[in-house]
């Protein structure tokens, strides 16, 4: 059970360091989801920036016409700040607070140190058939995947998909729609169906015209927060949340010690540890991949040391 906010934060609040830091962390979790809310230093110190961010949140998310700049433990502002966090996720946030007190905080470790100490240097995460401009998975995310490789006793992973622009998404949907439109209607949700209907209604037009119409439909949907595919995001959004697939067959073809179950189990452990935001195990589906979403630099990589960030390899379960 999360403890939540213990005392008021903001204008005329008690502003205990722990509580201010908690509010700063929750405010930062909304950064980028509605502009312009800049990232705050999570230092536990109340100041004009934090109060301005509270007011911004109250005005634009809570819907307060006259924001008071104060977050109360049982108030609507705190309820809305934590709305997208399950109890487990709130506990995880509060654990970070405990771990981050000066006496408990570990020294930051560079990627180079993590690599050297853990022997990650010999592990390779490469791209499959992906255009160079779409090879933008953050080095942090690559390190996280290397941890899963290390833990599962594998040496290589191949990224087979990153993000798609609306134009690329439209071309893929047109190409596949021409092969089997009904299968595409089954594969996509309501948003994808709207785009497929554009194709269905305009079959007499040229491919370029259809792609343009489908692309426009994808862009319009995106403007109202409706995503056609989990891979169809803008580059700026992508930098905040890396979304990519690791292909089973591409990885199997180049990897020593390939083991689907162990690798899946290690990825799941990295989800539990908070390094991976979302893992969708699609190894049993036709696209045969691990769909992974990672927020770059969300949680510092700790020194791998003698044992393991997760578990010693011999104890890695095969699920």
């Amino acid at each position, binding site marked *: 059970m999360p403890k939540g906010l213990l005392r008021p934060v903001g204008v005329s609040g008690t502003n205990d360091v722990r509580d201010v830091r908690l509010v700063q962390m929750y405010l930062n979790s909304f950064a980028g989801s509605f502009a312009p809310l800049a990232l705050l230093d999570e230092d536990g110190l109340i100041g004009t920036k934090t109060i301005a961010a509270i007011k911004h949140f109250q005005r634009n998310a809570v819907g307060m016409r006259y924001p008071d700049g104060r977050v109360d433990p049982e108030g609507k502002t705190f309820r809305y700040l934590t*709305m997208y966090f399950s109890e487990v996720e709130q506990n995880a946030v509060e654990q970070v607070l405990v771990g981050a007190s000066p006496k408990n905080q570990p020294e930051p470790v560079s990627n180079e140190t993590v690599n050297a100490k853990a022997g990650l240097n010999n592990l390779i995460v490469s791209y499959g058939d992906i255009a160079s401009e779409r090879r933008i998975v953050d080095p942090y995310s690559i390190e996280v995947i290397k941890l899963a490789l290390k833990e599962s006793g594998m040496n290589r992973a191949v990224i087979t998909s990153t993000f798609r622009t609306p134009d690329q998404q439209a071309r893929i949907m047109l190409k596949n729609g021409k092969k089997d439109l009904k299968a595409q209607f*089954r594969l*996509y949700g309501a948003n994808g169906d709207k785009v497929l209907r554009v194709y269905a209604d305009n079959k007499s037009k040229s491919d370029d015209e259809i792609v343009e119409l489908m692309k426009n439909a994808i862009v319009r949907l995106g403007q109202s927060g409706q995503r056609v595919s989990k891979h169809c995001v803008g580059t700026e959004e992508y930098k905040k949340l890396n979304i990519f697939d690791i292909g089973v067959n591409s990885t199997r073809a180049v990897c020593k010690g390939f083991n689907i179950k162990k690798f899946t189990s290690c990825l799941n452990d990295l989800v539990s540890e908070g390094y991976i935001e979302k893992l969708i195990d699609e190894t049993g589906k036709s696209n045969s991949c691990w769909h992974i979403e990672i927020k770059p630099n969300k949680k510092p990589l700790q020194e791998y040391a003698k044992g393991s960030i997760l578990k010693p390899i011999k104890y890695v379960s095969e699920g």
Partner: protein
Amino acid sequence: MHKLVLAALLVVVNSACAQNNEALDCKYTDRVIEDIAIPLDGKLVEKRESVDPNSDEPVYTYTILFQNQDSMKVEQKFCDMYNMSVTYRMKHLDRKEFDASLNRIKQIADNAKQDYQLKAPLSAIVDMTMNQRGLSLGAAFDVGLPSQAASSNENVEHSVSFKPLPTSEAYAAELGFYFGIGGE
């Protein structure tokens, strides 16, 4: 909540649906609850089974009437994905009725027992989304809900729509909710 289980009443299985499930090798077939539980103040007035002409997916459609004369149409469509669409027609429109309608919709979504759990009341999630996008009940909208608003081990797509019905004599407004899991 009182659950009205309709299994005894609705034993007629549409053979076309069953055949389609087999022909398409639909992975969601065994995971769909055919007879969803109806909220206490609602009454099921119709259930239909059909096939989506665009995709050949089986579709279960339920029409529910509420004591306050609101009506709800729930559609479960499934094969490679599970899709639930709800169309809720409100007799009277004000903020309280709007929130109550969203709560009824959430009950239906919860009763579907899929790998999809909203982390907060739907009315609160919709309220925050409306605030962030500057929307009001004065005009129609159709917007995606944030992916982080739901827990699931699968790919999730969800959205809410609203439109006033000024020319309708029966209803003041229509509210739509959709969630889909799996798929692309």
